[in-house]
């Protein structure tokens, strides 16, 4: 996935080229491209007067929801909230790391899965939980997490 320069311009237009909306603009680019491509970031500094490449870079690395590298077709996010932590969230993460052969933060070579951790999904009553795309799966253990993964393979 990628995003065209025209699309970046359209997104900027929708936000009236307002620099305070920069985070929202980046979120929309990420939603469409799956990550923040360098050329799109460069386009932002071209079109927004007074916004330096450093500022765009600062935003895209400060906020956790942005990725500067392409992510997989399925984004797995293992919740690392407190309830998940004490109910085996780390074991779930390690199980998925072993199953996929990648570490947290990585993407499989065929780009079908990327594995990330997330602070807290707010589904603490169902801990430990895993989000795949938009779907949240709860009440997991290692075996159930592996079964969830198989559904997306």
């Amino acid at each position: 996935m990628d995003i065209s320069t025209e699309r970046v311009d359209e997104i900027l237009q929708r936000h009236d080229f307002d620099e305070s909306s920069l985070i929202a603009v980046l979120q929309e680019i990420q939603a469409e491209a799956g990550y923040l491509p360098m050329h799109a970031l460069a386009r932002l500094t071209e079109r927004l007067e007074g916004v330096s490449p450093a500022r765009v870079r600062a935003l895209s690395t400060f906020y956790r929801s942005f990725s500067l590298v392409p992510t997989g077709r399925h984004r797995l996010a293992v919740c690392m909230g407190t309830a998940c932590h004490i109910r085996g969230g780390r074991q779930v993460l390690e199980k998925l790391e072993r199953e996929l052969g990648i570490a947290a933060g990585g993407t499989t070579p065929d780009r079908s899965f990327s594995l990330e951790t997330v602070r807290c999904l707010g589904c603490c009553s169902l801990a430990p939980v895993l989000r795949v795309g938009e779907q949240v799966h709860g009440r997991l253990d290692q075996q159930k997490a592996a079964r969830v993964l198989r559904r997306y393979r």
Partner: protein
Amino acid sequence: MRATTGGGTTQGTLGRVRTVADLDTLKGQGLRSLHPPVPKISVGMATCGLATGSGDVFEGFRREVEARGLDVVVARTACIGFCQVEPVVAVELPGKGAVLLKDVKPLDVRDILEKIRGGDLPTDGALCTLDGCAPIEGVPSYPDVGFYGKQVKIALRNCGFIDPESLPEYVAAGGYYALQRTLTSLRPGDVISAVKRSGLRGRGGAGFPTGPKWEAAAAEAHEEKFVVCNADEGDPGAYMDRSILEGDPHAVLEGMMIGAYAVGANQGCIYVRDEYPEAIRRFERAVADALAAGLLGRDIFGSGFDFGIRLVRGGGAFVCGEETALIESVEGLPGEPRQRPPFPAQQGLWGRPTVINNVETWANIPQILEHGPDWFSQKGSATCKGTKVFSLVGKVANTGLIEVPMGLTLREIIFDIGGGVPRGKRFKAIQTGGPSGGCLPENLLDLRVDYDELTSAGTIMGSGGMIVMDEDTCMVDVARYFLEFLKEESCGKCTPCREGIGHMLAILNDICEGRGTELELHLLEQTAQAVKDFSLCGLGQTAPNPVLSTLRYFPEEYESHIRDRKCPAGVCKQLIGFGIDPSLCNGCGLCLKVCPAGAVAGELKKTHSIDEGKCIKCSACYEVCKPGAVRRA
């Protein structure tokens, strides 16, 4: 055929709402969709419900009702709090009241509909009956359910009872009447006095009194002011704000408008975590519906008061829950906190006077205006009025979202409401206040829960996360966990927080990995004090709390790790080994099947064993062993 997706669909037949009579019309509409003249099935569809499959249950009902041409309304609602037993479905029959059903699966749909067709309320899998329902044998009434008995709902009053996407249903539940009365018959000063008299304190964490905060902003002579809703609920283990936004978004909006009127603001902003897409969607819907009805925008209720609101999605940075960092983020910058003073009430968003309150605080406001400050202040403890919503999670039998009067004891919350620790395990600690809070031990279970009592015990109320921990939780690991979290989330602007947390984490890693020394423990305490005293914002100032509270209440666990190189809870990998208790092993072979390292040996129906040399300590065998024969120690 009357299958609809809830009351929201009927909206739009009414134009602008300008008077009480208009509200009454809307209310009538809402009441008809809340309690239709035909059977009604409401499915709990907040994020937690959806994660347990309530979407499939809803679809199942909808399809079956349609296919059989039944005169039954299938509606959506949000979370009624008891997440442990999701999916939860409410069934209401005209004239017969309603029951709540728990753990409903798509396979149960036909049986439930069959029962309804026969004119009876289903009782299989019933959790309880709701108000107005004749007693049913074997089914407790709502207040008789342990989980609900001690709860008093103000902020959660509508969650799970109305369709959050229906403006008429919110009005039917009393919504927007407080705003109407405020705008047309109260002066801004009256509103502030009422909020002050109610004793409401900010529900986001620090517990700053809300009325005086508003008063400070109102006193600023500036044409442009802002109100902000902080929905950047970052504390891991807490989801009160998500649930309120998903279950009752109009209450937050109404609260913000009342606040805006009181302080003289015409613009609002809500900053919602990126991790809460459903909350964002429902709040946006509420804004659109309120706009269409003229409850937002220009000249609301013909009072001359204008209000507009903007929703900002967070970028996934914990520090943005800190109010000045949140302001930076709304302005399109990295969320690095500002020096206070000046406080946001003087100079906030775009340098303008700004009132920032969290979701739960705003949700309380319409109720305070509707019932009066005394009604509110009669609830709660001497110094903390009203109720507080908590997410009661972790190693507790009844997990979910609860709202209780301030001043209930921890014991009442964990054991009466929460049902205690499951699987016969022993209670060890309760963690409150997220990464800024601490862990309290068993001998403090009779502590009364309010801002001041918790602070005096070395933790904080925080936004309301309560994580119960049992004997299998290592307190040193918990402290390490929070520091790891904070190290990544520290924005790096000030040195004590950025560097100090890293130093503390290094020491805790040493302790958890069997390299800790007594000297380091001393250094840990010293560093903690320095980070607490010299950090710029609340994140750093409270970051040492998890360490200090566990050192204070669980020193023996630190000692075991340092002196004996043992983790008594069996958590810290470097300090534990796995083995099988031959007296408990039934030779089922499950452990052998799941072991990814080929470390388990044994034949079916004979005692198995673990080769510690091959074991990678992944705990897979521990998780699957039914008789509990796998030992971690």
